[in-house]
Each structure stands twice: as structure tokens, then as C-alpha cells.
């Protein structure tokens, strides 16, 4: 028992509630939320180090023993995810200080921001399937409010779809949970894993597994359920769309990885190597084709979320330690890089007043720092060494060839090429060419906007150059989640 595990959940809870009370004082709100975001970041780093050194930490909430009460489990994967989520959230928060309009601040932007974090951190840490649903809902309700925040006509129209698809997915989620309960009689993930292994009912378990996959695929933006994503991420201001693009779909991916390594590992040949791999291939391909066909900065980035989520799921589908480690490394790389790119789109929009690539041009001359920072990040996204993108794609594709999954590996290579193409399209349209913005816009100082993004750019370079220790860490994470007995033993203490 260690109460530290719950701090990443209740700390934002308390801060969010306190921020509601000081809604009239904008400056105070900024100071409090900035300091608490940094504290939360420090806390999540400490938790990650602690779990790395001492092993899995389990907290039985309310002192009820494991299969009956709700448990929170901090293993390597969940602490890594909490760390990344907090990092992304902190960066976006500091970017929001400079860009979010005072009207939005007045309408509870900061409290909602922290409530979103409760849901995200809770979903990563919980060890109970129903509790996972609850934290998903907390996250979604905060995200409904944030995605419509500001209330422009476009936002209202697109977030309506976002709400509908997510409410539907949540309904399916409940159905899947009820079904699981009726089959196994438990919802504690460790207990479930144990019982699923004992139950020799592959058929019905496969149905439940696929139902869960559909639910999480809807939230994570997988083929063919990604259609809501590019449009709804286009509407809100840069800080919010960067947070969503970096964070929210990855919660769905985390849930897939968690359930399909811990619980539904009874029929890997079917669920992983056929279903998940196929879905991953289509997701990558359609996502990148969508990106290639777009001519809008933010839309290209939104479609790339889809194609890259495909890589992560592909790593899970191949299901060797190398591939899963690659998927985990990819999540880390993607969250960092994608958030940075969305924020660069926000900066470019602030300068030129548009995100349409055809109306942009010549940013390289007027804002060289922005251009080169974008260039580094874009190359990293496309997977050019020595940035982190290369070291995340390489093990996944390598594992694909080792496991004789040639088609999917070929698709992954092609998608990498097309990613490079569409990133270069952004670079050549927005940064090269004739200057299309006015002289006044050209003189706009953006140093303060780039400052919060700089750590992310630095991280993608560090993740690339220090690939070996980072990859060994993700290999360790992969080995831990692929051996469910560690998780089960630490929760049920047998």
C-alpha cells in the first residue's frame, strides 16, 4: 500500500476545485495552475523512478482487499504514460497562457483542463475495468467542454459529432463490461486475467475482446472508426487541439495495449496477429492518404495522428517483446512530437492568421527559429535518423519482418515515405516560397510562444541520441506487460 499512487489523480482534482473558487482572478489562476502543473510533473517523474526501482505499487482504495475493492496499480507502463501525459499537459498549459483569449479563461478553461487530467491519469493508473470506464467518462466530459470551448459555429457543429460518437462508444463500453462480468464474475483486471486464462471458452471471449477493441478503437481513432477525428481536432484553439492530439487518442491506445496484453491473451493468433494487425495496416494507410490529400496545416497533422496510431497498434499486433517495446517507444515519441507540431501550427496560425497552406509562405525568412524547430520535429515524425521517430519505427518494422508479417511491414515503410512527403509539403508551402503575410505580421515576436515548445523539440533529439537507454527501458516495460503474472501477483498477492 502506498498512497503516492493516487496523487496524480487527486492532485489535479484539488487544484481544479480550487481553481473554480478563484474564477474571477485570471492572474492568480494562471500562477496556481502553472505551479501545480510543474509540481504534478515532478510528482510523476518521482513515481516513475520509484516504480522503476522498487517494482509495481498497488493501492487498495478504502482498504478493501483486491478482487473486491477498487485497486490502483502503478506498473512501468502506467507510470510512463502518466509521465508523458503530464509532460504534454504542462507544455500545452504554458502555451495556453500566451494564446488563450480572456473570454475562454473566464469560462472555466483552467478547471476543465485539470479535470481532463484527472480522467487521463486515472485511466492510466486504474486496475479495475469499471473504474476505467468511469475515468474515461471523466476525461470525456471535460473534453466535451474543452472542445466546444469558445463556441464558434464550426466548433459547435464538429463537437456535436464528437459527443455523439463518444456517447455511443461509452454505451458499447458498458455493454462489453457487463458481458465480461457475466462471463467471468469479476471486473478487477488482475482477477480477470487469471480467470480468462482458466476459462476455456475462446469463442465467447473473442467476441468480448473484439467488442472492447471496437470501443477503444473509436476513442483511439483506429480504422474504420477514425472519421470523427480530423474535423473535431481542427476547431479548437492550438493549445487545446495540441493537448487532444497528443494525449486523448493515446488513452484509447493505452487501454487496447493494457487489455490485450493482460486480459485477452488467450488467442493471440487470431485477435492479435489477424484482427489487430489488419486494422493497424488500414489505419496507417488511410490516415496517411488523408494527410496527403489535405492542404491545411492542422488537418494534415490530424490525419497523421491516425496513421501513427496505426504503428502503435501494429507493434501490439505483432506481439513480440521487440515490437511491443517499439510500440511503447512510439507512444512516447508520438506524444512529444505531435504536441509540438500542433503547437507550431498554432504559432504559424498566430503569425499568418490562417492554417491554409496555399495562403502561407515565406515563414522561413521572417521567422527562421520557428521554421527550423518545425523542420527538426517534422523529420522526426517522418522517421529520419537520428531523431526519435526513426528509433520508434525501426524496431516495429524489424519485428514485423522477423515474424514474417511482410505485408504490414511493407505498408509501414510506404506510410513512412508518405509521411515524409506530407511533412515536406507543409514545409515547402508554409516556410519556403514567396512571403504571403504582411510586413506587420512578419515582425511579430514569437519567442515567448516557442519557449514552452522548446523542451519537446529537445526531447525528440534526446530520445534519438540516447536511443539505447530509452529503448532498453521500453523493452523492460514491454517484458513486464507481456508477462501478466507480475501484474496479477502484485495485485492479488498470491
Amino acid at each position, binding site marked *: *500500500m502506498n*498512497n503516492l499512487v*493516487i496523487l496524480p489523480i*487527486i492532485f489535479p*482534482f*484539488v487544484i*481544479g*476545485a*480550487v481553481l*473554480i*473558487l478563484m*474564477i474571477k482572478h485570471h492572474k492568480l489562476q494562471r500562477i496556481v495552475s502553472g505551479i501545480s502543473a510543474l509540481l504534478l510533473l515532478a510528482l510523476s517523474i518521482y513515481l516513475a523512478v520509484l516504480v522503476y526501482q522498487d517494482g509495481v505499487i498497488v*493501492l*487498495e*482504495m*478504502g*482498504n478493501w482487499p483486491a478482487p473486491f475493492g477498487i485497486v490502483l496499480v502503478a506498473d512501468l507502463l502506467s507510470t510512463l504514460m502518466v509521465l508523458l501525459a503530464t509532460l504534454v499537459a504542462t507544455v500545452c498549459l504554458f502555451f495556453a497562457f500566451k494564446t488563450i483569449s480572456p473570454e475562454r479563461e473566464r469560462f472555466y478553461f483552467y478547471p476543465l483542463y485539470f479535470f481532463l487530467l484527472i480522467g487521463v491519469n486515472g485511466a492510466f493508473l486504474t486496475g479495475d475495468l469499471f473504474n476505467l470506464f468511469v475515468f474515461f467518462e471523466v476525461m470525456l466530459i471535460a473534453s466535451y467542454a474543452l472542445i466546444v470551448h469558445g463556441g464558434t459555429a464550426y466548433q459547435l457543429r464538429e463537437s456535436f459529432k464528437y459527443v455523439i460518437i463518444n456517447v455511443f462508444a461509452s454505451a458499447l463500453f458498458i455493454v462489453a463490461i457487463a458481458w465480461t462480468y457475466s462471463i467471468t464474475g469479476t471486473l478487477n483486471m488482475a482477477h480477470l486475467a487469471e480467470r480468462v486464462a482458466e476459462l476455456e471458452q475462446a469463442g465467447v471471449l473473442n467476441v468480448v475482446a473484439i467488442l472492447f477493441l471496437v470501443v477503444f478503437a473509436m476513442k483511439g481513432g483506429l480504422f474504420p472508426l477514425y472519421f470523427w477525428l480530423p474535423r473535431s481536432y481542427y476547431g479548437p484553439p492550438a493549445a487545446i487541439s495540441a493537448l487532444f492530439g497528443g494525449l486523448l487518442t493515446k488513452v484509447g491506445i493505452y487501454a487496447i495495449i493494457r487489455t490485450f496484453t493482460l486480459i485477452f491473451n488467450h488467442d493471440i493468433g487470431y485477435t492479435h496477429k489477424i484482427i489487430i494487425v489488419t486494422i493497424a495496416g488500414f489505419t496507417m494507410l488511410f490516415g496517411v492518404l488523408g494527410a496527403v490529400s489535405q492542404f491545411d496545416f492542422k488537418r494534415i497533422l490530424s490525419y497523421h495522428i491516425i496513421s501513427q496510431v496505426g504503428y502503435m497498434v501494429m507493434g501490439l499486433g505483432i506481439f513480440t517483446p521487440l515490437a511491443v517495446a517499439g510500440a511503447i517507444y512510439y507512444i512516447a515519441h508520438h506524444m512529444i512530437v505531435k504536441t509540438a507540431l500542433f503547437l507550431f501550427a498554432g504559432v504559424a496560425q498566430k503569425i499568418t492568421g490562417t492554417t491554409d497552406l496555399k495562403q502561407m509562405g515565406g515563414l522561413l525568412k521572417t521567422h527562421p527559429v520557428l521554421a527550423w524547430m518545425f523542420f527538426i520535429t517534422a523529420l522526426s515524425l517522418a522517421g529520419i535518423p537520428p531523431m526519435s521517430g526513426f528509433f520508434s519505427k525501426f524496431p516495429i518494422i524489424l519485428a514485423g519482418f522477423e515474424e514474417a508479417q511482410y505485408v504490414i511491414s511493407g505498408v509501414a515503410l510506404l506510410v513512412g515515405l508518405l509521411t515524409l512527403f506530407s511533412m515536406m509539403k507543409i514545409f515547402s508551402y508554409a516556410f519556403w516560397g514567396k512571403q504571403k503575410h504582411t510586413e506587420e505580421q512578419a515582425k511579430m515576436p514569437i519567442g515567448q510562444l516557442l519557449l514552452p515548445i522548446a523542451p519537446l523539440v529537445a526531447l525528440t533529439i534526446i530520445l534519438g541520441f540516447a536511443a539505447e537507454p530509452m529503448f532498453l527501458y521500453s523493452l523492460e516495460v514491454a517484458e513486464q506487460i507481456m508477462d501478466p503474472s507480475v501484474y496479477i501477483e502484485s495485485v492479488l498477492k498470491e
Partner: protein
Amino acid sequence: MKQKQIKSNDVMLQTFARILILIILTFSIYLLLAGHNNPGGGFIGGLMTASALLIMYLAFDMKMIKKAIPFNFITMIGVGLLLAVGTGIATMLLGYPFLTQFFDYFHLPILGEVELTTALPFDLGVYLVVVGSALTIILTIAEDDK
């Protein structure tokens, strides 16, 4: 041409509302207190209180209600959240897992033997959140017309 406002006669509604609100509020407090062992609790008690307050909004005019209930409902949500999570944190400070429940029997004057639990402040927090958010939602929609 300006439309003439029709003034309605609310005597019936207002007379009944006074009695009804009293009954509903009493019952909602009962539900709140019964919560941790019997059917009831902060959520259902809060909803019932909110419905009592809504009858008030239907029967009387805004000015009077603002005078009778001088709270900001959104602040109420914040206070409720803090109260609920504070109960959990208090047990953490004593070295137990988050949200561990404690209870004991006390002899209080008038009420006699009473079971007091730490679930009660938690429920009270939930109650405040529910009343605050239900009224915020309904009043936001109601004020939209003007």
C-alpha cells in the same frame, strides 16, 4: 407593437409550493443522512433538493429567490468537490489508503445513540456538487431565452 405581458395569477402555485418545498427539502435531508447504510445518499438527496429549489424558481420570481438563496451555485460545486476529496485525503494523512471509511457510535443529546461515519462529509460534498451542477445546468438553459 409591443406585446403586452400577461400577468399570471400564481396564488395557488405559491401556496402549494411553500408546503411542498418544505416536505421535499426535509425528505432530501433524510435521504442524505440515511445514505451510507440505507437507500439514499448525497447524489439522490442532492437531486431532490435541486428539484425543491426548482419548484421555488417556478413559483416565485428571480429577485426574491436571489434574496432567499444568496449562493453562487458554481462556487458550491467547487466547495463540494473539495469537501468530498478532503474526506479521502484526511484518511491518507492518518496513514490509511485513500477513502478508508471509519465509523463509531456516539451518544448525542436529543438524538440518542447515533452512528457517525466519515462517509457523511463525503456524501455532503457529493450533495453540494449535485445541487450546484443541477441548478447551474437548468438555470443556464432557462436564462437562454432572455
